[in-house]
């Protein structure tokens, strides 16, 4: 359903019928021709009116009115759009209220969100007894609009919302669907600067929709750190499965070549056995297939602190400390003390920090060696 307006207690569908940026006037019309004016207090600029944009509805728990960010693709260091909270589009009190670039994108964000709102996006039914509504009232307070300028994209610079999910989740942004944003459990700080940099999932992986689904639909509404850890570990499972597929193919090719040479065959089989081990593949993942691009020291500190508190041996390498935590959570959760929930929460937070880089740099050719 497009914009829902309450009329005598019933919800009536209204669609955008006119958008006049110079007067900041947006007109909605119902099927029977009744009209409602959408009020916006900003002096919008419609000079981008004829340009080509894509619109995505996002939500972020406790989003602030000043959470207005220019969206950059990290690898290309190129601005491709803006993320704007709904509340900032209905207010002239924030720092961007008179920013000429913002006002151009704000016009597009309002027009496109009114145009693209449908029954698959959570929205409010608005009372319009005086024929006017406040733009922000249409949406939940946690809603934000991501506007991507297609003109900034090219064959080399593509934008894919599913491939961008890990970076958005890292800052607390979740794709808005029908779920009431009040159910969001994910709370993350916004970027420190005015830029929000996105690293997209590598083209080596074709499971971006699955990853996006796990993060947006399950992880974001999960409160328990144990289940959050479990869900994030699924992404590591997915990656090390890919590692296994590539490694196994290479070893089998090698085995065929050394057929008849029992020494080399034994060596090859040993490699295959090693490759079957989940822990080894976790090591290979970061050593050979994907550098996270950020330091692992905090993750190491939090994992080892938890291991110590659980009476387990600490470790230096990623595969050792991470796998030990994984083993305890998966196999010994019954012994997990409530007091350590915050430690596990810290680990989950750190995993969210490193995941965008790992997923973006994953390369099946294995050329991503340290």
């Amino acid at each position, binding site marked *: 359903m497009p914009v829902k307006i309450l009329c005598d207690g019933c919800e009536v569908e209204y669609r955008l019928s006119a958008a006049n940026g110079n007067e900041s006037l947006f*007109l909605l019309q119902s099927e*029977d*021709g*009744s*009209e409602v004016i959408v009020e916006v207090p900003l002096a919008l600029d419609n000079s981008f009116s004829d340009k080509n944009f894509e619109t995505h509805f996002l939500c972020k728990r*406790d*989003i*602030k*009115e*000043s959470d207005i960010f220019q969206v950059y693709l990290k690898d290309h260091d190129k601005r491709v759009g803006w993320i704007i909270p709904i*509340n900032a589009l209905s*207010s002239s*009190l*924030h*720092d961007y209220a008179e920013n000429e670039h913002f006002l151009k994108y704000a016009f597009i964000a309002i027009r496109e969100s009114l145009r693209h709102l449908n029954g698959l996006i959570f929205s409010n039914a608005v*009372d319009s*007894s*005086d*024929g*006017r509504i406040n733009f922000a009232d249409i949406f939940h*307070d946690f809603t934000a609009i991501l506007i991507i300028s297609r003109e900034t994209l090219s064959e080399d610079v593509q934008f894919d919302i599913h491939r961008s999910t890990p970076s958005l989740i890292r800052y607390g942004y979740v794709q808005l669907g029908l779920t009431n944003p009040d159910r969001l459990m994910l709370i993350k700080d916004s970027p420190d600067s005015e830029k929000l940099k996105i690293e997209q999932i590598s083209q080596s992986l074709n499971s971006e929709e699955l990853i996006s689904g796990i993060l947006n639909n399950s992880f974001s509404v999960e409160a328990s750190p144990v289940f959050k850890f479990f869900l994030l570990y699924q992404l590591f499972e997915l990656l090390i499965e890919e590692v296994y597929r590539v490694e196994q193919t290479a070893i089998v090719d090698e085995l065929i070549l050394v057929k008849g040479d029992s020494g080399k065959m034994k060596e090859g089989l040993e490699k295959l056995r090693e490759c079957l081990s989940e822990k080894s593949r976790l090591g290979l993942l970061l050593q050979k297939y994907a550098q996270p691009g950020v330091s692992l020291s905090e993750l190491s500190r939090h994992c080892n602190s938890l291991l110590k508190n659980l009476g387990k041996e600490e470790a230096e390498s990623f595969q050792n400390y991470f796998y030990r935590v994984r083993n305890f959570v998966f196999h010994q959760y019954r012994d997990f003390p409530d007091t350590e929930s915050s430690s596990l929460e810290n680990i989950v937070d750190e995993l969210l920090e490193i995941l965008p880089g790992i997923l973006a740099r994953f390369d099946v050719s294995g050329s991503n060696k340290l």
Partner: protein
Amino acid sequence: MRIASNLYDSRIHSRNLLVEITIGEYELFVNDVLEKNEFQRRRVRSSKTVYALLKEDLLKQCIIPPIVLALTNDVEFDQDDDESFKTALTQNKDHLVILDGLQRTYTIVDLLAELRASGDDESLQKVLGTKLRIEIYVGLNRLGILYRMLTLNTGQTPMSLRQQIEMLYLDYVSKEIDGVELIREADGRVANKPNQYNFKDVIEGFNAYLDRDELPIDKANILENINSLEKLSKENQNSELFEKFLSSLNSTISKLVELCGDSEVSEMFIDEHGSPFGKNISQIVKKPQSISGFGAAVGKMIDFEVLKTMDDIHIVVKEIKIEDPVAFLEEINDSLLWLKSNSKKIGNAQRSFFTFFFRDLLNHDSDSFRSPIKASKSALRKYQSLNM
């Protein structure tokens, strides 16, 4: 014209007459109403099909639903004599208001203009002679009009919220209270003199006082507002209370303006922190967020018996002290800038901040009593502890 029914509405204390009238007579009564009426709502762009259909129906002498009018002054007429009422109505047509049926009236007027332009005299005479029913409330006061519009009007194009609020308090615009001048948006002037306030901001502040809530007025509580005003009106305090509110607001703001003089935040502060909420004291305390915060704060302090009446404020503010105006301006801006960066809704956060600010400033039990700089800090702390 024929009076078909004559009833008394005890809820809004007004006589209601159901009258049969020709479209020709109706046109004479309402032509000026569409031009002059202070309550007049704009003509909305609505379904062309529906009104085109109505025009066709009128040509076929269709009976349309009754149009509801109000006569805002009380008129003398013989209730058994139709002509006496017609004369009274004609003499007082400047006081007519259309409560329900504005779009129907526009359609009638348009149709008559089209028929005159086309020279189709036969159709014109037919329409002019068509009868319609009108209901007229006689001697309905402003509150009654608004109540009637909000509760009984089922039309699709009611007044905007701002118009409703302004209408509720319109009588106060022309009253001079303590030398204060209230400026309406429609006046096209800016409230930039010390004694000038935006009418809309003061109304919001008074409403915040009545509701003990600093947040913007929503549609739902307009009706509650009418109820509270009616109650106040019964106690004959209505006008006095608004005057007291405006006077205490002006007293507080004037004192702060007097203490800060022409002081402004330093250039260094602006370089470090960016654009401030307000460079000088007037730019800070005369904003709607501050006035609403003041209203809610005073209301709450009276509820908690910190203040006995609004008159106490005049005494309290006399002793407010500011040693370093620039330091105070920078402190309050610092708090407001923090809210700007950290609030879900900046406007609401600022209103809450000012509520705490004025509560601390005017409360003799508070550590920040009569100290604006201390109140700037404590108000932010209180906001943070409640919202973060």
